[in-house]
């Protein structure tokens, strides 16, 4: 009978691989099922977070400087464009104020405390980004002490950019909506057509070729047009209803017309942001 433990190096290699595999499996289970990572991981993340400020601040400063330069160059054109929008905006604001008041009164009458569309906001700065870019993970400087919870949606500008995938004490990880991970949580979304019809579906991925998000799981014959708004539907989780994701950019018939592929142009630049807003849905908390 050959000696089982004769080759020490082979045993070390085997044990190392088993440990590595176990560690990966354990981490994936934590990410998928647990609300927050174990205390030791949280602590390590917080320590790294504190030291990373020293490294990341010059980078952020540099990026903000470039942003400032670019914005300064396009100020005139932007000013002209914005002037045209101001009148319309004032009109909309008045309308929104009236509707909000009316909505509040109606909710009171119906004894509704909060609905799927109610939420509060937490502003956060982006600290860093995963060096492996196919992971599409951002690190932001707000954690559980600031009220961040797992799966909360994250916005930048006027559009949704991702959701919280891990919460530590002082920082959190954000999985971008453009993530091409097969195990990523998808956003339940809906398209509101110009006629007012609603089509429910899910943001299933991101097309690099089209530079657009893919709206899938569509089961309707309703006509969808380019320019129709795509918003979160508020179904299945902690995402409130009505957060703008983008607008329909292209509609493609696939599989000899049996399925429809809808490309959604994001409402914000999903690759360039320094400050983000985490959305905390009021209902269900």
């Amino acid at each position, binding site marked *: 009978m050959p000696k089982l433990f004769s080759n020490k190096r082979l045993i070390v290699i085997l044990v190392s691989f088993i440990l590595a595999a176990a560690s990966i499996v354990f981490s994936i289970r934590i990410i998928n099922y647990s609300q927050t990572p174990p205390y030791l991981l949280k602590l390590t993340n917080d320590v790294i977070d504190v030291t990373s400020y020293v*490294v990341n601040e010059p980078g952020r400063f540099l990026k903000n400087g470039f942003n400032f330069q670019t914005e300064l160059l396009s100020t005139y054109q932007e000013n002209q464009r914005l002037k045209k929008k101001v009148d319309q905006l004032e009109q909309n604001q008045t309308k929104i104020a009236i509707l909000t008041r009316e909505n509040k009164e109606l909710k009171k009458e119906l004894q509704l405390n909060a609905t799927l569309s109610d939420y509060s906001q937490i502003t956060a700065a982006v600290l860093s980004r995963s*060096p492996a870019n196919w992971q599409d993970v951002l690190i932001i400087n707000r954690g559980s002490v600031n009220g961040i919870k797992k799966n909360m949606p994250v916005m930048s500008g006027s559009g949704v950019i991702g959701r919280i995938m891990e919460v530590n004490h002082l920082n959190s990880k954000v999985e971008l909506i453009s993530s091409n991970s097969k195990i990523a949580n998808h956003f339940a979304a809906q398209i509101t057509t110009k006629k007012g019809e609603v089509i429910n579906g899910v943001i299933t991925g991101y097309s690099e070729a089209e530079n657009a998000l893919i709206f899938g799981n569509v089961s309707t014959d309703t006509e969808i047009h380019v320019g129709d708004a795509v918003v979160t539907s508020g179904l299945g989780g902690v995402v409130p209803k009505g957060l703008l994701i983008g607008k329909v950019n292209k509609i493609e018939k696939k599989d000899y017309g049996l399925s429809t592929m809808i490309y959604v142009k994001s409402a914000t630049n999903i690759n360039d942001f320094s400050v983000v807003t985490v959305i905390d849905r009021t209902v269900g908390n």
Partner: protein
Amino acid sequence: MKKRNNFKIYFFALFLIYLLILVDGSISFIAHFFSAVVAGKIFWLGSLSVLTVLSFEINVNFLGIAVVSGIIADIFYSGIIGIYTVSFAITAIFLKWIVQYLPHNFIYIVSSYFLSVTIFSTIYYGINNYLGLTRIVPFQYLATYLPATLLFNLIYFIILYVPMLKIIENFKRKLALKDEK
């Protein structure tokens, strides 16, 4: 005395690699401002450049340091412990092996770094692909992601090389002086 020196070397190596792991994330964040399409295809590996230069300059086994720094990178960037760790550890073993056969000059160090990036990035992608953490198909990875990663990391390495070498040589000099005393 040797044991104490080794401890100092490990601590120094860990500090440098840790610093570069954070810098990698910062560069990745800034790079998206210039071109999201290009930046989205690069895996920034400054940490590997430190490991490569250290393997050539200091004759110590850095496997343990590679494992520890890999765990740190995994915890901070992805939350899945093991992927960066395994890739980094295997690359450290490869570097330890190749250093014995190559002369210590810039061309060979760059070539080793080039091979290390290929090995690291491919193992990292392979594990991600196997676990379903990416939808990038192997052809896409080989045709676009790997060349972009190699090209930009080569430039990154050339920029980092001189300051990194100076820091390491300075550390070695200080260590030697202390030994003499």
